[in-house]
């Protein structure tokens, strides 16, 4: 069982396309599209969103995270959440639709709970918070150095796998100084094949986080 995802977009094509993209990286996660109006126009429909939320609720008890595009999609999603049987099982993520959905899907695939999936989506949004870490001077509880072996290096999919997987762990992780929870910061490292990634982790799951990254990076993220 994993957390379920619902995509609310003004456009049926955007919703379907975003689901298609995210599903590639999260084969075991139920991702439902609720795009466009009942009659195939641009807009959002309470009925479509309700149907998706009900289907998601039927299929599990692990909760549902909703991602939206423009303003009225948010309003329709919020309206729909007022009508579901268990509103506490549905979380609305405030994140860019495509990037947020990919990060959420990867986190759900990795087994994160609903709050963790929401957090993974929203972490995509945040500007780098580097200065905050600077004056903390606490030594990391676990570290590791791993070479990027996959051909494409640190691109979107590996970044999503890292940030998604870490969202399920209670650890603060930096990778060459970038926040391990932020898919955007990881991508901005621009690390190519052969780059050695220096991992520093602290918190209760620090060791598990380093182990997780060792497995992921040395296996080339399952890529050639």
């Amino acid at each position, binding site marked *: 069982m994993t957390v379920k995802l619902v995509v609310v977009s003004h456009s049926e094509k955007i919703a379907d396309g975003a689901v298609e993209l995210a599903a590639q990286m999260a084969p075991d996660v139920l991702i439902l599209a609720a795009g466009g109006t009942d009659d195939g126009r641009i807009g959002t429909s309470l009925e479509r969103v309700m149907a998706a939320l009900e289907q998601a609720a039927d299929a599990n008890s692990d909760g549902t995270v909703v991602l939206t595009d423009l303003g009225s999609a948010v309003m*329709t999603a919020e309206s729909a959440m007022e009508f579901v049987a268990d509103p506490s099982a549905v979380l609305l993520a405030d994140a860019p639709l495509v990037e947020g959905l990919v990060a959420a899907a990867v986190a759900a695939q990795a087994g994160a709970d609903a709050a963790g999936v929401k957090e993974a989506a929203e972490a995509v949004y945040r500007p780098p918070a580097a200065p905050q870490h600077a004056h903390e001077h606490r030594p990391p509880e676990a570290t590791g150095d791993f070479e990027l072996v996959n051909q494409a290096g640190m691109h979107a999919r590996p970044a999503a796998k890292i940030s998604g997987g870490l969202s399920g762990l209670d650890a603060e992780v930096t990778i060459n100084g970038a926040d391990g929870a932020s898919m955007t910061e990881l991508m901005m490292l621009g690390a190519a094949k052969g780059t050695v990634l220096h991992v520093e982790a602290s918190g209760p799951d620090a060791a598990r986080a380093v182990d997780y990254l060792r497995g992921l990076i040395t296996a080339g993220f399952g890529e050639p």
Partner: protein
Amino acid sequence: MGLDVNWALRWLALSADAMAEHREELIELDRPIGDSDHGENMDRGFKAVMVKIAEAPPETAGAALKLTAMTLMSKVGGAAGPLYGTAFLRAATALGETADIDAGTLATAFQAARDGIVARGKAESGDKTMVDAWTPAVDAAAAAAGDGDVRKVLLAAAEAAEAGAVSTDPMLARKGRASYLGERSIGHRDPGAVSSALILRAAVGAAE
């Protein structure tokens, strides 16, 4: 004598007529500052409301407004769907099972509707939205309710909403698609404020 389910059904029918009649005007207002679909969306939404009412005529004003809420949220498509939907839903809740709506209850229902719009859209007065029609309408309705005459409450709300819609002309849009235009939104009337005024005016006609 207060208002009953027949008033609510006439109100919704007259609102549907007003949306059909002003469809092009609302589209024209929405063109420079939105996506020019407000007239079409509202017309389609209220036509769908009429179909739903014909299928299963509601027995209370509250039930009629709730049916309207659910239908608008599903059929309008644009931002007006969840906004009007929430407004009608909150008004329906405020009316409950009331069969005979008095002036105070009516003013309270209008306030609940406005509060629903604010909660859903997070707009404030002066943001150039339908709130700029609804808030003066709610204030005028509350002031008029003291006389105990529901028709005076309806008329006060409609007149204040119409003045409120006009007051959006010089405003800078801070919510919705129009806010992307910044300064260029100034000089245009907000379509949602205009449709709100039309709907509140229809409520007056329904009580005559």
